[in-house]
């Protein structure tokens, strides 16, 4: 639990000034009313013109066209501006990497082939990452921090984190952990299992069968009285909620036939499947819709960049949506997870309804990831992840004017903005090294 204590005597600016590089010491929660805005609630109230959102104790207290304001409230006039829930990236490495090419700073994958399903990103998340402020000042408030496959088809467990930085207690930023198990099939899966798709499917089947056997014979296993398994005890334990259909299994897969194979595998083991990538998803859209399997997409993925994505098209999101598939967006990036709204805008340019594009970064991932009771729409009682935009949030020239995460107003600064400010006047009397925020 984050502290909900308010320090009304402390001005936000004071706290901002005290920020270190990745300073996440955001202003404490206070009661705030955002008024006069166009509010896309993404919930049952739809879009409200000239509306008000009241944030109190980290939660949304009220939303509507006409909302009585509490006595002591900081009012933010947002006339002409747009309010949405904080944005969500369904596949990111934020918190797991500082510089991709600097191995020491990268924890998204492991080269240790003894650890597969048990690999858990929650143990490595860095809430003080410099990437967090860079992304949240652009409206991103929550991401799935996902592992990448290293030497195994099963990459491990990802977590949902918020971008509010470190809280008052260890792990405050963990919204849901584990959020899912991640694995790859298709070309990547084949490459990790002897070079053939057949092997990769067999290996996953074997892992699930071993887990089921382990569940039924745990005591015998502990006593050394069971056939050897292909996975370690920790990996088997991590897979238990997957084979029980409790923890989602995210499978990265692109070719239409690989999607079909994955759907069959999920049906065979009663898995709670989520597809990621799905470049050729539109070719098998009806099957995906019938299986009620959600799909995580990067809408900009339109290159026939491999033999498993020859059918890639910018119309993939629109075609999947039209077929009734549940879609959410992912960046697959870390530094520029913030560009997820550019992805969404392009999906609209290529046929996806605007509301569906915004939902694919808010309400829909909230449902897919099982956190809809707390996040995803602007409704009373939910966590106050709220962004005020100076224009259409899907438009690349728009920018947030304020970002709240769990009710706390975030400082609109970052290491990259400090670099900007240091070098914006090259004729300043003292050299850059003396210029500090």
């Amino acid at each position, binding site marked *: 639990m984050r502290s909900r204590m308010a320090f009304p005597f402390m001005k936000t600016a004071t706290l901002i000034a005290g920020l270190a590089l990745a300073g996440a010491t955001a202003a404490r929660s206070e009661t705030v009313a955002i008024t006069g805005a166009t509010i896309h609630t993404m919930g049952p109230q739809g879009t409200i013109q000239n509306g008000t959102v009241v944030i109190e104790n980290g939660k949304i207290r009220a939303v509507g066209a006409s909302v009585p304001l509490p006595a002591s409230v900081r009012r933010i006039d947002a006339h002409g501006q747009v309010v949405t829930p904080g944005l969500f990236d369904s596949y990111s490495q934020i918190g797991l990497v500082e510089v991709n090419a600097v191995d020491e700073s990268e924890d998204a994958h492991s080269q240790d082939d003894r650890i597969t399903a048990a690999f858990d990103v929650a143990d490595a998340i860095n809430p003080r990452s410099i990437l967090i402020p860079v992304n949240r000042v652009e409206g991103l408030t929550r991401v799935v921090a996902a592992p990448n496959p290293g030497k195994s088809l099963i990459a491990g467990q990802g977590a949902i984190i918020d971008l509010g930085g470190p809280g008052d207690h260890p792990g405050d930023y963990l919204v849901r952990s584990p959020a899912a198990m991640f694995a790859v099939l298709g070309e990547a899966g084949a490459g990790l299992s002897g070079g053939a798709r057949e092997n990769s499917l067999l290996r996953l089947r074997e892992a699930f069968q071993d887990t089921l056997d382990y569940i039924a014979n745990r005591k015998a296993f502990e006593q050394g009285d069971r056939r050897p398994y292909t996975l370690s005890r920790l990996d088997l334990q991590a897979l238990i909620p997957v084979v029980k259909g409790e923890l989602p299994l995210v499978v990265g897969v692109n070719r239409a036939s690989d999607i079909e194979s994955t759907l069959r595998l999920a049906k065979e083991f009663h898995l709670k499947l989520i597809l990621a990538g799905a470049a050729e998803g539109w070719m098998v*859209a009806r099957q995906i819709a019938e299986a009620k399997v959600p799909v995580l997409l990067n809408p900009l993925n339109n290159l026939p960049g491999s033999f498993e994505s020859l059918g890639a098209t910018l119309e993939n999101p629109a075609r999947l949506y039209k077929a009734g598939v549940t879609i959410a967006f992912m960046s697959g990036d870390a530094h520029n997870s913030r560009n997820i709204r550019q992805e969404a805008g392009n999906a609209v340019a290529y046929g996806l309804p605007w509301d569906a594009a915004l939902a694919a970064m808010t309400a829909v991932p909230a449902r897919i990831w099982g956190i809809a009771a707390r996040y995803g729409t602007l409704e009373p009682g939910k966590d106050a992840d709220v962004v005020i935009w100076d224009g259409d949030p899907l438009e690349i020239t*728009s920018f947030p004017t304020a970002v709240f995460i769990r009710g706390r107003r975030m400082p609109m600064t970052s290491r990259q903005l400090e670099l900007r400010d240091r070098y914006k006047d090259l004729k300043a009397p003292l050299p850059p090294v003396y210029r500090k925020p």
Partner: protein
Amino acid sequence: MTETLRRTAFGALALLLAFTPLACASSSAVSPQAAAPEAARSGEMKKGEKPSQAPATGPASGVESRRAGESAYTSTYQPLPSQPVLITNATVLTAAGERIERGSVLMQGGKIAAVGQSVAAPAGAAVVDGSGKWVTPGIIDAHSHLGVYASPGVEATADGNEATDPDTAQVWAEHSVWPQDPQFPLALATGGVTTMQILPGSANLFGGRSVTVKNLPGRGVYEMKFPGAPYGLKMACGENPKRVYGGKGRAPSTRMGNVAGYRDAWIKASKYRSDWAEYERKRQAGEDADPPDRDLQLETLAGVLSGDILVQNHCYRADEMLTMIDIAKEFGYKVTAFHHAIEAYKIADVLAANGICADIWADWWGFKMEALDGIRENAALLQKAGACVVIHSDSAEGTQRLNQEAAKSMAAGNRMGMNLREEDAIRWLTINPAKSIGVDKQTGSLEPGKMADVVVWSGNPFSVYSRPDKVYIDGALAYDRNDPSRQLKTDFELGIRDSREEVQP
């Protein structure tokens, strides 16, 4: 960017530095045999004007021993047939500084014939109603690897980095370009890209020569080659060369090793150039003289020293760019453009004073150590200092959205209080990259006499929702969003999608 983004198994972008060293600038230098005939044939130059791609006077040009091959490797590009076209009533960004509301653009004989508030349609002209549309010059990508890193990205198509020696100035990107790369049609249809400089990768100190092409896939690269465009020489600073060769236990393994490598090569090139000059002098004086042995690597470097080949220098950090400027001073050449130039904003004044273009991404940062200080305001701060700003892609995805990348850069500048407008930002995508690759006399702006490379956008090109409706190359309709007969499909793409699936759902 060959070292840049690739799709992961999840279909998301990831930086896979391990596999492909970053690609960056290209090589330049018009070799004697290639450039001269093209420049002459293109007819783009005014009399007496010395185009940057003019034949070299040094070893590269006028050398008797090379005259045998003079017609080889030249452009055989022919524009598509066209008729006069008048676009009316559109918002026109000329990239010459103007923004014309309800303006017209007339294309005739493959050239821009007139631009203005009201232009009369000549007899027989097709009139395109541009109501609600925006018209810009064709987009120019100064940093592309299409064709040399084609899709699908398999080992067999990875032809962009001759990563076998830190100096491969002797290789030419045009000898790797696969015209059937399906990424060419995407750049045209999604991005409105009409011209691009295709560069070798950035594994080496000297990567080789670039080639500039018109975005109309032909049967061979010479059917695409931009008539009269100068070559570039791709050079690379920083992490890539030292990683690639340090990893092989050879030089360079440090940044100082990089610099020693450049200087050593320029010393040899200087001697090669003077040897040829001496030979020429003797020959013309009627003295007995044997021509020096021809050396492809030194020929390219000598082309830079004689000003015929443009240096396209992949370089991220401010301190390294400053060093590279010093190396250019030592050997008397000019850096035409720093590519990627993540920290260009830190030395914007120096780049402006030296007339060096900064060819940059809008917002890539952090994927490697030398990219850590990338900021969204790079373009805006360069513009503020009066430097030449180019938004480039280095990416087969990014090249399809250069307009959006420029929009982000423009918006970032305006957030810090600047007043950047569409008529400013369009220059970052058209006339400035044209300058950066040496074709600004021929294309890059909507001005009478220039190549009629034109995009009609469905709306403001700096909106995420806008798309190219029509793209003209040399006055001919190369792409039409609503006319399948004007949409490209490479050989590779034939038969790979089931037409029944195409219409699903």
